[in-house]
């Protein structure tokens, strides 16, 4: 298999300027992730894992350094282009789930589909995904505040997958799940990876990290 870099970080630094002083959340991180890889990111709390994922997920721009996606520097891209990258190419499972509170679980999963295809899902994809993460139709009719943490997490995973993203970013996808459900989710991610998706996953759990083929460890904003 030819190794094609999907993501390339070159000396990426992210500094948060706060009234209490600057926080260097990422410190000259250089990293390459090839297409089809399954990478786990580990490291203590506050080491910059989520910040790194936000950079790769095109949610944020580097303070300095460059980020290339499929060889294209994100610095040269406009907000419009980055937004459609987030919609079509990247599926992001947030640490805090980030479901839209006004929409039901079903509608939350359908949302990116509607944004992309401009029509409701008539392929049954939303239902299939909800079934795969173990959310049955009655539960899918509930709004996020009415769901448990683990249920919200599973809805968030289904939403991230609805547009068949080439790159899946997961920020502790199993953090709120029991070990059985956690294993099911990991199995699902493993399947997707075998079908060609590139997966980047933050986790604190060494066993979960074992599903990945490579593990990156971060400390104080650096890859060690």
């Amino acid at each position, binding site marked *: 298999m030819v190794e094609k870099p999907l993501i390339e970080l070159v000396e990426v630094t992210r500094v948060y300027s706060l009234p209490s002083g600057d926080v260097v959340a990422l410190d000259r991180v250089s990293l390459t992730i090839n297409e089809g890889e399954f990478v786990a990111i580990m490291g203590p709390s506050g080491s910059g894992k989520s910040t790194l994922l936000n950079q790769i997920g095109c949610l944020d721009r580097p303070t300095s350094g460059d980020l290339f996606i499929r060889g294209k520097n994100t610095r040269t891209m406009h907000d419009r282009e980055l*937004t459609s990258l*987030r*919609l079509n190419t990247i599926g992001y499972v947030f640490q805090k789930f980030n479901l839209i509170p*006004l929409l039901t679980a079903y509608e939350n999963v359908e949302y990116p589909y509607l944004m992309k295809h401009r029509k409701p899902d008539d392929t049954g994809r939303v239902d299939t995904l909800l079934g795969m993460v173990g959310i049955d139709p009655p539960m899918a009719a509930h709004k996020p505040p009415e769901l448990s943490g683990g249920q919200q997490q599973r809805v968030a995973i289904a939403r991230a997958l609805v547009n068949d993203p080439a790159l899946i970013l997961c920020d502790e996808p199993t953090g709120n799940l029991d070990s059985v459900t956690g294993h099911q989710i990991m199995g699902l991610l493993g399947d997707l990876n075998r079908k060609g998706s590139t997966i980047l996953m933050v986790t604190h759990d060494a066993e979960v990290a074992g599903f990945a083929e490579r593990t990156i460890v971060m400390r104080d904003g650096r890859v060690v």
Partner: protein
Amino acid sequence: MKDIILALSLRSIRIHFLRSVLAALGIVIGVVAISSMGMMGANMTLSVTEELSSMANNLVVRAYTGGSGFGGGPGGGGTSGSGDEFITESEFREITKIAEKYGLVYGVQSESDRIEVGDRKGRATVYGLDDKVMPSIFSLSEGTFPKSTSSVVIGPTLASRYSLKTGSRIDIGDPDKGGTMTVRVVGILNERGMSMDVNSDSAIIADQKLFNGIYGREGEYNQVNIILNDINDTQKVKSAILDKMNRKEETVTIQDSSRMLESITSTLSTMTTFVMAIAGISLLVAATSIFNVMMMSVTERVREIGIMRSIGTQKSEIRKMFIYESVILGVIGATIGAILSLAIGWVVVLAMVGSTDYFFSPSSLVYIPSAMLVGIVICVTSGVYPAWRASSLDPIEALRAE
């Protein structure tokens, strides 16, 4: 297609129902204010126009008094009665000679005087007219036109104010200045409304002989009226009289109702615009409240906006969500306002104009859709900045909001 952005706007409005209703209420009030003021103006214009154009074939000739007091300098001879405010007998004859082939020409004398009916005192205009022309100008609701030199006809407003009937007696004149004269009412006229030839509704109409008997003003006419047979002769007759009478100096001016109509209509429309502008202030207040509600909505939904942006929602979609929200508020407010305008406008028109005959005419009803449009436009305009604010939030910052 299923518009999820629209669904989100609707849900946000529903969740903050009371707040949204209050914001829309401002628009309701604004739309009602503007459209009922507009309809009032339109109805006023329509009814005045109608009233005046029924006598558009009237020309009124008056003595020239305008401009400087030196208008008719000393020693002015000829046809001039210059300096005074009357048309002289010879001028009257001259006008008659020019205009009689185009219609009816008659002189009008008038005085405002004290009157007494029983023990009620007051003032009224007394007109002196040739009794032969009275039937062509007025119509009677009861009685006859004056035949003897001590009988008069009166207008309906005067009749009802003093409870006068045919046979009633009126004392004209001031007992302290030249004494009084008692006249008998023999007829009551139909209502004529406001006009420029003879305002008969609250006046006493006497024969010329009686008038001159009281006031001793033979050959002094306040105005000479011409009722044209053909309205198209207006300009021809006007210029013929002016050419002849004003050859040496200004002695007469001629008023025709088209000019009067024009000036009244333009006065009314200025007035309407002014009242509507004042009503417009209420829409400005409404705009502020919509703006406020939209800003609150944005602030409250910062996190939601962050989520939407982070999963690939374009800025334009976020803007659309808030614009939708303000459009919905505007449309609801303006629609309720339009419905209420029909009722409130009707009441206002009835109270201010006195008749709702023209309420459903297009030029009156057009104010409802116009006011709606203004209301919606204002609503949308007040939503633009909040929508822009929402769309330009930084996703990372927005996601951290609680």
